[in-house]
């Protein structure tokens, strides 16, 4: 059994799992960003048919517990695919976690992206069209970069929530930092809960501070001469 009273070893034990947590965070963040932008654009431009699908997807993934989605992906999807003779049961559990996290987070991100996209003035699109850009070019070169800057604080919110969501991986046995904490707690029958929660909070907080530093640096660098409300 682990020594609860030894703060240092507690820290080391939990920190040991930080790479797994960060790995899940990064991969699912990238995937959900890509998907989120796609969903946002589909919804803004109201493409026929896929607009309905995207809206449905958004509603489902945003509104049902991540746990349920994880169950659907981890337990349900293999069964479904088995009906088509595809066996993915032996796939690494991590992949199921990443899929669920990405699908779930993409729904939230798509709204972050949508609000920022709409906050960039229409005149920016017009300008891009007038110099001969296509919609896609205008999007990537002009509108999304500006939307990105506007959305940074919301993106920060989202990444931090995603960080916390990764702890769900423990449900299907991937031991991340929170999972390690739960194991230590269980091993000790809940004794030392206070110390352990202090440790996990500090580790989460530390990670958050890193995320916040990245976000605020980006905010400063990408501001590009934009004057905000507060300049006075």
């Amino acid at each position, binding site marked *: 059994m682990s020594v609860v009273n030894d703060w240092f070893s507690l820290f080391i034990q939990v920190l040991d799992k930080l790479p797994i947590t960060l790995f899940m965070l990064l991969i699912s963040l990238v995937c959900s960003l890509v998907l989120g932008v796609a969903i946002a654009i589909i919804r803004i431009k109201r493409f026929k048919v896929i607009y309905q699908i995207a809206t449905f997807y958004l509603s489902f993934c945003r509104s049902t517990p991540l746990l349920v989605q994880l169950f659907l992906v981890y337990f349900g999807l293999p069964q479904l695919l088995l009906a088509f003779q595809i066996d993915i049961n032996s796939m690494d559990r991590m992949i199921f976690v990443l899929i669920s996290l990405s699908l779930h987070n993409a729904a939230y991100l798509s709204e972050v992206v949508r609000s920022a996209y709409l906050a960039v003035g229409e*005149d*920016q699109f*017009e*300008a*891009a*069209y*007038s*110099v*001969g*850009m*296509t919609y896609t*070019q205008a999007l990537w*070169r*002009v509108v999304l*970069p*500006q939307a990105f*800057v506007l959305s940074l604080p919301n993106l920060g919110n989202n990444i931090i929530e995603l960080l916390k969501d990764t702890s769900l991986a423990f449900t299907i046995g991937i031991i991340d930092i929170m999972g390690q904490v739960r194991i230590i707690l269980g091993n000790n029958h809940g004794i030392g809960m206070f110390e352990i929660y202090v440790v996990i909070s500090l580790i989460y907080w530390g990670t958050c501070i890193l995320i916040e530093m990245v976000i605020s640096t980006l905010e400063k660098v*990408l501001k*590009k*001469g*934009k*004057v905000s409300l507060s300049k006075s």
Partner: protein
Amino acid sequence: MILLKHIHKKFKNNHVLKGIDLEVSKGDVVTIIGPSGSGKTTLLRCVNYLEKPDEGTISIHDLTIQTKKPVKKDILQLRRRTAMVFQHYNLFENKTVLENVTEGLIVAQKKSKKMAREIGIDILTKVGLADKINAYPQQLSGGQKQRVGIARALALNPDVILFDEPTSALDPEMVGEVLEIIREIASGGVTMMIVTHEIDFAREVSNRVVFMDDGQIIEQGPPDDILIHPKQERTRKFLKRIMKEPDFTI
């Protein structure tokens, strides 16, 4: 070169363009004058399809767009053959002055970065902004923004340039220089449509003047005909303030 047929445009119940027919030949510089709200900007925006007309056809050269059933590829073509200077400048907020000018060259015209940069610096120097190339739009004065807008359009070197009040924020000195530049590129065969309120400027820059009111073309012709001896009562009234004070400069 440019041929507009029967262009109609409504915003809800507001019938803004009531059947515009206009022909502009290659190398022509046409100015459009008319009271505020008469539809000048809307007309210009229809030419490169930023505003979708409700009816009519737009042709540039061999390219024709039926506004009722537009072909996407044609619209892109149309926009690649035209450039526009916006009344409100519409600069790319997240790009520097130089990037504003080179963006279209690199992205739409696939020019190399180096070449785009050369063209950009050259044209920005012409409009007197050589020292501002690394500034962002929010750091510019009104006239500076307007000149970036002009430079951006000129750099594209398109078949047609649409100017929406390109001198509204410019001082007389600068107006003179812009006039020079426009004359220069017009002599190179570029066709231009210019909306303006400065009658003097219209007179100096264009070889045809179109007078619009209430969504219709009231009359058109050579500058001296329209601006000095207008035939229509409406035009005369519009120009009255300028005409009645023949002594007002020196």
